[in-house]
């Protein structure tokens, strides 16, 4: 058991099967699909509220998704804790400035990597709320419910992702 918990990686089929079971538990105990992106929208609203005050709450989007802690917000907090426990148990926790694949293609360029990550993050935050979900909300929870919009969204996530990753790594960075 301990050896299993300290293993660096599990088979993707075990990890994926476990996530599928968690989806079932979430439907049973909470009547909710797993999803991560609204927690970011709510947090953004909470931060804006702390600067601009209650005017923030007048925005139509925050009337739909109130800037407050909810089930999904706690889920994302749990993801941070769970990944931390897993990384500590397997000795995989380490401070990382620039990931390996990036370094091989673009060198040890902290500023460029973080800037690219920021632009990517902004597109993800914007695109996830535009599409109404992310890789978990649409990509896993929506597709497993056989939702039409989620299957289309999941395909578009990967089409956009593959095209831009190929352009970035094969053309721009020339790796």
């Amino acid at each position, binding site marked *: 058991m301990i050896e299993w918990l300290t293993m660096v990686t599990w088979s993707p089929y075990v990890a994926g099967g476990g996530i599928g079971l968690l989806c079932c538990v979430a439907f049973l105990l909470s009547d909710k699909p797993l999803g991560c992106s609204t927690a970011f929208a709510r947090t953004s609203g909470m931060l804006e509220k702390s600067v601009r005050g209650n005017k923030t709450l007048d925005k139509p989007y925050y009337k739909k998704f109130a800037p407050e802690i909810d089930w999904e917000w706690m889920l994302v907090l749990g993801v941070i804790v769970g*990944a931390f426990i897993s990384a500590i148990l397997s000795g995989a926790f380490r401070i990382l400035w620039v990931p390996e694949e990036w370094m091989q293609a673009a060198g040890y360029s902290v500023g460029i990597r973080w800037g690219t990550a920021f632009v990517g993050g902004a597109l993800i935050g914007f695109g996830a709320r535009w599409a109404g979900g992310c890789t978990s909300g649409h990509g896993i929870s929506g597709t497993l419910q056989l939702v039409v919009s989620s299957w289309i969204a999941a395909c578009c996530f990967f089409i956009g992702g593959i095209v831009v990753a190929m352009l970035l790594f094969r053309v721009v960075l020339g790796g």
Partner: protein
Amino acid sequence: MFSNLHADKSRQLLIGFLIGIGFGFLLQKGGVTDYNVIIRQLLLEDFTVVKIMLTAVLVGMIGVHLLRSFGLAKLHPKPGSIGTTVIGGLIFGAGFALLGYCPGTVAGAVATGALDALFGGIVGILVGAGLFAALYPRLESGILRKGEFGAITLPDLFKVNAWVVIVPVVLLIIGLLWAIERAGL
């Protein structure tokens, strides 16, 4: 059966947190809190992300629909339109490639010590989500309404029992996974 539990807000927050711990643990153990694994997926060199997602969908699809057959779960389909789902999905995809994490795995990556996920990714996602909230009134009346198809599932669309769709999708997923393994990816 669990409607009292569903209505209990504080216990729900605790359940959400506990499920999140399991989710984060599995994402890290599966290897997808690592930028390298995700970017190699998008470069079609490593299929860990697709294997995890397809297995999760396979197990979750059968499980949730079984629960539903016993009256223990309700579906929550999200609405969509060409304007929302396709355009938003492609914007998300572009961001996915530049960041190398998605909203769930970026949270997990931060917890394994990835500073690009924290200072680039999390900050960026918060800015992007805030920007969407600011532009929402203008988008909502225009582009987001283009080509609406509503909150429907594939069985609704084909007007069949859910299992008529589940069985071929299960076979398709198993076939895809088999092909990926056979190709040595």
